[in-house]
Each structure stands twice: as structure tokens, then as C-alpha cells.
């Protein structure tokens, strides 16, 4: 019997360490420590209901477990074989407890390839990875295929880069393999700068060896003996697990000289990012690894010709690498049978925002947004109305109701005015103001622009100022035209991908939510009630019973009135925090 405890960053923040300890002591108290193993694994994905505990072999899925629940699970489930109902997932539609994750709406449509081991193995134990076919793919490649044959398998599989661009991976490897040099490099891009996307981190935390193995395969294909992983310093747990994994792989002779006695040598080192979004761009990333400011440079030359230290360098994303070993073991035909015509396989998405089931999901390409948001995601939080879903992070756009049924793949998302990006999916409801959302992304871009080229450095700042003006009710119709024109100029003239895509959130909200812009500009109203400058909190004297709840909770004492008499708000003092509205039980306070 095994007890698996999720040890992803989210669940650890809510005490999974203490849960593991508690299980161990409870088991020991019942003399069961040798019969039941407690394992801390990577992320199960269902972060909304974390911390998650899974009991094998019957695959029971407990949600929101607290350390003090360990005793009951051991006593009831482990010893008496009775499931602890109160900790099982409650299906919101059927109002029934579901014990096997296979039958949960959240998991039913998922296919796990990149995340195959996340939540199943202890990421700090190489033997568990090996037991699930780990390091078989590199063995197969080294003994059965030459580099070109391996590249051909990847090409045939149709795998495209998961870092955002969607460039065919096999082709990228082939180009790097043909450039002659005394030294070449394989680089894994683990910078994951899109705020709200955390799939790469989960792969590295939950299954670090799958990336190391794939990097070795890439090294064999392109003729490189050195691998570098560029990882954000903000991911301490992923860094720790990678270090453990690298040390174990070296000890087993799976990294280092003469791997498996085949004469092939490959080793991996870590390089740390230091908090700059633009460093996810591959040329900037390479400069950062060289110890410089992470500023992008023009392509060509592409990294495949002249990259790290001027040598041919192949850069791939974490999730791209995580797909490689299954392709080698199960074949290109198997992989290309999943997905759409031009986008094969699966994609991992980080579902977040106003959605019931926040978490990490892996779904076949071609699934619709509707299936993702309403079946897997369980719909919108608090029964609110769906308004938009943002994909592609700061480079992407906001999609609406009318896009819900298009099959998700690289090309369809671009056609719809957004992009795949790294896989962040932020769901918004009726309370979100789309002008503010565009402003939020521009704020991000302005802060993260490296400043090297004028269109991005200055243009985005102007875009931000225009949006700010509109959210304050000072915008004009001319400003709306200016937004559109300036956006197009920035897209056409910026040096790197950051600037070339930064106006997308503005353009897509202008296209899909023009009415909302008009409301801000012409009526001086924010329909979602988000823009502080455009709203006023008022108490309806008819509805107010004088309970004083609002006045007691106002942080700035802006509310006055006698007990049992209607209260009123002094709008000169009010900081529009909204605390009073939440506290009023009589719905007497509204935003005008």
C-alpha cells in the first residue's frame, strides 16, 4: 500500500510536509511503517482542492487534507479498509462523492504525456523514475538509432515547441546537428516568465529526470556533450529537485562520460535567472547565461548557428523536452495520432482566475475552450457569468464566448487573435474590466521591457498611459484610434518577441470588447465596476436599516449615521475599497 502526498509548491504552502510527518507517525504508532509507504510526489494538478492525498492501490483521492486528518485516514482506510467520505471529492453536479480520480470531471478528458509521472513518483528517487520506463528512451536511442534516425522520429511525431513559438522540434534539432563546431550546447529554457503559468515548474518539481533524459537524447542528436538548464531563482523547490536528480543520474552513470558504455558523453549544469521576463526569449537567455544583461539580439544569427559562447546551441522549453521520451518509446505514429492536423500531442495548461477548479491540466490538442473551462474547470466561480479567457500571457489576447467552440491548437488560437504562449489560461468573469486587464498587461510589459529598442521602451509606455487615461474617465475617441495605430507600429517595429506581441492584449480587447472601451470614454462608466475613478459608493436610504456594519468596517471612517437610521458615505474621504459592500447584509450599498 502507498500513500502519495502532493509536494508541489501550492500544496506545500498549505502544509504537505506536516501531512507526511503525521502519516509517518500515525503509521508507526500502529506498527504499519513497513507495510505502507508514504511518498511525497510532484503536483497532481488539482491545486484548487489541495493538499491532495492519494491512496494506492485503490486510487482513492482525498482533497483538502489537513495534518490532523492523517489519523483518521490511517485508522479507517488503511486499517479497516473504509474510505473517509468527508475527504472525498464532491461532484458539484451530482452531489455525490467520487473516490477514483478517473471519474472526476477534472481528470476525465485529460491525457497525461508530459505530466505522466507528476504525482506518481517521488521526484527525489531515480529508482522510481526508472521503474516507470525511465532512461529506457536514451538506452534505445544509443543502441538502436543513429542521430539522424532519432531526429526523423521526432520530426515525424509532429512535436512543436511548447515555449510559445510552436517551432517544429525535430527540424530545430536537425539544423543544430548540421552546423559543425568543436562544442555545441543543449539548453533547457525553464525561465517560465508568464505570470500565471506554472507547468514547467511542475514538471521540474514532479519529474526532473524526464527533462534530463530528453536533453541527453537531444545532445546525442545534435552532437553536444553539454547541457544547461536556465531556471528562475524564484523556483527554489524545482532547483533543489533538479540538483538531486543530476547528482543521482551522475551516480548511476546516466549523465557524465561514456553513458551506458556507448562512448556518448553528456552532462548538465544549472544556470539561474534573476527575475527578468525578457530572459525567456532565447537570445536574451543566452546573454544572461554568459553573465550579461539579458537583452535580446537580432536573429539571424539563430542560436543554432551562434548561441552560447558563440557555439551552436539548441534551446527548447521544459515541456517540449518532457514529451521526447514517450515519443521515442511509443513511436511517432502513436504521438501524431493525438491532436489536430498541424498541432500534435497534448498541451499542459495552467487554469487559473475565476474558475472553480484551478489547477494544472494536460489535454489533447483540438479540445475546445468550452470543454476546458466548463467540464474540466468546473465552470465559473460563485455562479458568475463567463466573460473572457486570456491565453498566451502578456503576448496573448482575450477570447470570448464566441471562441469557446474552436479547437485549441497553435494556429487556431493565432487566427482568433490570441496565441498558445506557454499555456497560461486565466478565466475572467462579469466583474472583470477588460480595459483594466489590458492595462494590467501593459504595466507588466513596461516593467519588463529591456529598453533596448524604442518602439517597445517608449511605445508601450504611451500605450499604458492611454489606457490609464481611459480608466480614469479622461479618454477621448481619438485615444481609441491612437491605441490601435500605436499598437500596430509597435508590433511591426520592435526588435524581439516581447515588443512584437506586447500590444496583443490591447488589440484583442479592442476587437472583442469595444463597447466597454466606449462606455469608459463616452459614458464615463466602468460596466464591471472596477475602475475606481469612475465609481462612487452610495447607500440607499430606503434599504439601509442602520445596522452600523458598514461604518464599523470602513478603514477610513468615511461612513456616518446613527444606529437604526440610514447611513451615508462621505465620498471625499472614501477610498473605494469595497469593504462596506461586502459587510452589508441588506444590499443597501451599491456602486454608481
Amino acid at each position, binding site marked *: 500500500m502507498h500513500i502519495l502526498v502532493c509536494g508541489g509548491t501550492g500544496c506545500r504552502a498549505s502544509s504537505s510536509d506536516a501531512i507526511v510527518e503525521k502519516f509517518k507517525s500515525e503509521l508507526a504508532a500502529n506498527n504499519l511503517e513497513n507495510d505502507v509507504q508514504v511518498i511525497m510526489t510532484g503536483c497532481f494538478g488539482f491545486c484548487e482542492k489541495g493538499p491532495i492525498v492519494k491512496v494506492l492501490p485503490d486510487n482513492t483521492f482525498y482533497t483538502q487534507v489537513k495534518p490532523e486528518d492523517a489519523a483518521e485516514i490511517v485508522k479507517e482506510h488503511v486499517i479497516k479498509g473504509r474510505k473517509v467520505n468527508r475527504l472525498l471529492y464532491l461532484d458539484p453536479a451530482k452531489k455525490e462523492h467520487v473516490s477514483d480520480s478517473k471519474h472526476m470531471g477534472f481528470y476525465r478528458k485529460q491525457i497525461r504525456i508530459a505530466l505522466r509521472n507528476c504525482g506518481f513518483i517521488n521526484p527525489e528517487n531515480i529508482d522510481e523514475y526508472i521503474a516507470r520506463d525511465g532512461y529506457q528512451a536514451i538506452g534505445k536511442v544509443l543502441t538502436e538509432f543513429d542521430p539522424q534516425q532519432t531526429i526523423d522520429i521526432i520530426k515525424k511525431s509532429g512535436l512543436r515547441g511548447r515555449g510559445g513559438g510552436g517551432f517544429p522540434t525535430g527540424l530545430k534539432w536537425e539544423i543544430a546537428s548540421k552546423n559543425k563546431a568543436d562544442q555545441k550546447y543543449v539548453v533547457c529554457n525553464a525561465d517560465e516568465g508568464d505570470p500565471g503559468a506554472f507547468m514547467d515548474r511542475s514538471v521540474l518539481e514532479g519529474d526532473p529526470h524526464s527533462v534530463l533524459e530528453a536533453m541527453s537524447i537531444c545532445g546525442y542528436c545534435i552532437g553536444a556533450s553539454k547541457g544547461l538548464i536556465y531556471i528562475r*531563482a524564484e523556483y527554489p523547490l524545482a532547483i533543489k529537485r533538479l540538483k538531486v536528480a543530476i547528482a543521482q543520474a551522475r551516480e548511476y552513470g546516466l549523465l557524465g562520460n561514456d553513458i551506458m558504455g556507448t562512448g556518448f558523453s553528456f552532462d548538465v549544469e544549472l544556470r539561474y535567472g534573476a527575475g527578468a521576463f525578457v530572459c525567456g526569449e532565447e537570445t536574451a537567455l543566452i546573454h544572461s547565461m554568459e553573465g550579461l544583461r539579458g537583452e535580446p539580439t537580432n536573429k539571424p544569427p539563430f542560436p543554432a548557428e551562434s548561441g552560447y559562447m558563440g557555439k551552436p546551441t539548441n534551446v527548447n522549453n521544459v515541456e517540449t523536452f518532457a514529451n521526447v521520451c514517450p515519443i521515442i518509446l511509443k513511436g511517432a505514429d502513436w504521438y501524431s495520432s493525438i491532436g489536430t492536423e498541424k498541432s500534435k500531442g497534448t498541451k499542459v495548461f495552467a487554469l487559473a482566475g475565476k474558475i472553480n477548479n*484551478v489547477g494544472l491540466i494536460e489535454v489533447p490538442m483540438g479540445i475546445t475552450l468550452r470543454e476546458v473551462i466548463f467540464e474540466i474547470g468546473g465552470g465559473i466561480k460563485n455562479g458568475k457569468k463567463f466573460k473572457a479567457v486570456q491565453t498566451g500571457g502578456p503576448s496573448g489576447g482575450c477570447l470570448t464566448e464566441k471562441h469557446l467552440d474552436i479547437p485549441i491548437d497553435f494556429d487556431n488560437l493565432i487566427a482568433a487573435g490570441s496565441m498558445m504562449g506557454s499555456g497560461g489560461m486565466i478565466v475572467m468573469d462579469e466583474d472583470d474590466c477588460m480595459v483594466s486587464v489590458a492595462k494590467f498587461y501593459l504595466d507588466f510589459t513596461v516593467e519588463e521591457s529591456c529598453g533596448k529598442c524604442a518602439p517597445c521602451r517608449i511605445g508601450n509606455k504611451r500605450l499604458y498611459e492611454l489606457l490609464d487615461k481611459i480608466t480614469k474617465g479622461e479618454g477621448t475617441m481619438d485615444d481609441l484610434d491612437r491605441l490601435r495605430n500605436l499598437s500596430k507600429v509597435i508590433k511591426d517595429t520592435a526588435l524581439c518577441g516581447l515588443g512584437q506581441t506586447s500590444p496583443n492584449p490591447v488589440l484583442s480587447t479592442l476587437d472583442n470588447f469595444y463597447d466597454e472601451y466606449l462606455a469608459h470614454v463616452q459614458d464615463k462608466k466602468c460596466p464591471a465596476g472596477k475602475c475606481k475613478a469612475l465609481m462612487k459608493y452610495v447607500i440607499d436610504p430606503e434599504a439601509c436599516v442602520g445596522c452600523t456594519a458598514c461604518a464599523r468596517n470602513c478603514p477610513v471612517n468615511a461612513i456616518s449615521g446613527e444606529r437604526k437610521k440610514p447611513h451615508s458615505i462621505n465620498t471625499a474621504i472614501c477610498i473605494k475599497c469595497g469593504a462596506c459592500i461586502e459587510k452589508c447584509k441588506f444590499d443597501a450599498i451599491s456602486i454608481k
Partner: protein
Amino acid sequence: MSHVKVELKPEQVTKIKEICKSFNNNPGELINVLHQTQGAFGYLPAEVQEVVAAELGIPVAKVYGVVTFYSFFTMLPKGKHPISVCTGTACYVRGAEKVLDEFKRILEVKVGESTPDGKFSLNCLRCVGACGLAPVVLVGDKVYGRVSPDGVKDILNEYAD
């Protein structure tokens, strides 16, 4: 910005030199050197940058350029309890701004500043990847999830001593 001159003690200079040496004084390792140096000192004032530059044999301007480029590096000391409010997209749509406003209001500081007694400093950070717990606040290494403006007081009270 007024600049307080920092006097480095001889053992601190030795420590920086040791860090540089552990990377063979290789200028290509500048970012790793700065990571470790900041780990040891808490921040990277100009005086520290001067020692690093001399050891790696590069201009101070280059070190300064790198320090100011990356948001992870700071030239100002952090508070005893550094507070970071996540302003990633997931936290933003779940109300991080209101939480941040409440911290600003109670502590009477702007983002990037410390309280006069040096107890708290307030910063924003982009996504720790615990989006399921949004909005997220970090105090030191401790993660607080699903923070509401009301809960800000309670968090600060934990550090009242």
C-alpha cells in the same frame, strides 16, 4: 535618492572575495556571484559591487548594469520581514490589488520601501506558481494563500513582537 555609505568590514570583503574565487573569478559567472553575494549580505550596495568588479576584473558599471537589470537583485536592504504580494495574473484577477492597497495603507509605505523601524518591507512579485491559492502573499519564506484585505491585519499581527 540619498545614498548611505556602507563601510564594509575586512571579513565581509574576504567573504566576497571567497565567493568570486569559488567561481574562478570568471566574469561569465557574474550572475551566480551576485546571487551568492546577495544571499550572504541580503542586498548589493555600491560598495559590494565595487569589490565584485575588482575581483572579476570588469568595470563597476558592468556590475551595476547587471544588478539593476534583474529585479531579483536589490541595492536597498530588505526589512526584517520582507513582504511580497504576488501580482501575477491569477492573483490580480482574484483581488491582489486590494490586498496590496491594504498593506500600503496599514504600513504607510510604498512598494519597494521599508517601514522606518526596518521591520517590514513591501514588494510585488510575479507569480510563485501557487495560483490555486490566489491571491498569495509571502512573508519571508512563508506563503499565505487566499488572502483577503481583511486578513492583512492578522498576517501582520503574527509578526508583532
